[in-house]
């Protein structure tokens, strides 16, 4: 049993993946609390899926995949804001439009490159793919996101709870929403190596949904979210390591779902 846990730790790639998963868990759980409470789960799905054409395009052009991913995510966020600003298109449908268009563009690019196989890691995540540079980027992004969340904590909480009061006292809820979207885009980009474009949204939603079931204040929600994400992330990595062929993204998401189900069944009603 001990060997089961210790053996992967001797592999440098697994150590890097482990560090990356801890950083991602912290970031995604804190950010995810706002995503879940503000009912932006669908929006975060759109942002994370839209990374695909950005990364594929950047790889085909020989640019940094992170740059491509971030561009695509920001493009999607502004596209949604632009489409839903007109009367007659709800934000919901705007998200649906952007999500499918961007994802279709990604699939078209992948097919054009005749390289489906090379991109499975991108879609579902891969333990072996986290290099030293990736770790640095994940670390910097996570640090930036956590710092922003801490500094704007009271405004983000207020705007998530009572947007009109935030507006009344001049705390600019529209700006705060934009800041949150940018943070989600950054967080999604940081997680894409580990969890994959298709499943990153789960890291925002599942731990925080667990947190909302168990916590009575926002810090408690984040705390439970972090606990769930750490448990799911670490055990998912082990699952992916020991069962060859299971992508790390799938392992992590499945292991996060466990605590959520337990919380859902055990949580008191009301």
């Amino acid at each position, binding site marked *: 049993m001990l060997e089961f846990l210790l053996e992967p730790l001797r592999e440098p790639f697994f150590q890097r993946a482990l560090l990356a998963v801890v950083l991602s868990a912290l970031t995604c759980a804190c950010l995810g609390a706002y995503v879940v*409470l503000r009912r932006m789960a669908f929006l975060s799905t759109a942002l994370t899926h839209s990374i695909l054409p950005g990364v594929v395009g950047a790889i085909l052009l020989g640019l940094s995949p992170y740059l491509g991913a971030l561009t695509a995510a920001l493009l999607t966020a502004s596209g949604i804001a632009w489409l839903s600003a007109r009367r007659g298109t709800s934000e919901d449908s705007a998200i649906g439009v952007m999500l499918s268009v961007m994802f279709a563009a990604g699939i078209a690019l992948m097919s054009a490159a005749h390289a489906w196989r090379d991109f499975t890691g991108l879609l579902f995540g891969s333990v072996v793919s986290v290099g030293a540079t990736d770790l640095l980027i994940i670390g910097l992004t996570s640090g930036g996101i956590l710092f922003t969340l801490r500094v704007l904590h*009271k405004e983000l909480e207020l705007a*998530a*709870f009572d947007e009109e009061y935030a507006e009344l006292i001049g705390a600019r809820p529209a700006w705060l929403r934009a800041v949150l979207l940018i943070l989600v885009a950054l967080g999604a980009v940081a997680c894409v190596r580990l969890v994959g474009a298709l499943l990153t949204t789960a890291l925002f939603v599942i731990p925080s949904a667990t947190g909302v079931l168990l916590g009575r*204040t*926002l810090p408690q929600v984040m705390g439970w979210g972090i606990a769930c994400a750490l448990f799911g992330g670490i055990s998912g990595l082990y699952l992916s390591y020991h069962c060859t062929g299971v992508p790390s993204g799938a392992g992590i998401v499945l292991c996060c779902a466990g605590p959520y189900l337990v919380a859902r069944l055990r949580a008191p009603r009301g």
Partner: protein
Amino acid sequence: MMPRPWWSPLSDACFGLIPRVPYARPDRADCQGIAVVAQGLSAAARPHGPTAFTDASFSIPCGCRTALIGPNGSGKSTLLRVLAGLVPAATGSVQVLGAPPQLGRARVAYLAQRPRLTDPFPLKLRRLVQMGTYAHHGWFEECHHGDEAVDRALHLLQLTELADRPVHTLSGGQLQRALLARATVQGAELLLLDEPYAALDQASRDIVEAFLFAPTANLTIVMATHDPADSQRFDRILELRQGALRTVHACAGHPHRHA
């Protein structure tokens, strides 16, 4: 008093490094005893929508309790939202506490008829009331202050026992009282209330009335209401009908009264 976590000195030190930026410019306007003065005011509830009321001219002195009456759809809510700075005036001019209505003024509080709060949200009532102090803070500032003011406001609106209850377990009336407590903590001089009694049972209503009409409270109130029985308590009654501000009863000779 809320217990402070062990890391709070560290967190305070970090926050001390960040410059403080107020949400809005400090409000130094001098109103010279006039809380609201409007000339030929008209406004629409939403941009490019139909005009809710036209050509309203009135003034409200400080300390005056004003009822805003009229049938549904007569523009009461829109008028209150114009005064709060949430809706721009289409024509005419209006001064609120000596300055044009604008967002970010701690001296003005507004309570919507149906507050649009995210529900459920992991927030205790005490924290909700404490949000009233934010108006005096700004960006990048942690707030632990105002514990006494919060306690006083909770006591005033008889919410002390509920202070640790999650907000989404409160009844409509309790929530309405909590929002009034937040306005008190904010230190607002002018309260703009949109049918605050709509969700209240008699007990809650008594508490709110005792708070609003206390002779010692130095508040200016503009309240949209449907209740004709109430009119005795107000100093002044504005009536909106078919989009026009028709009658202004100034009930002089009441015991508590205006400057």
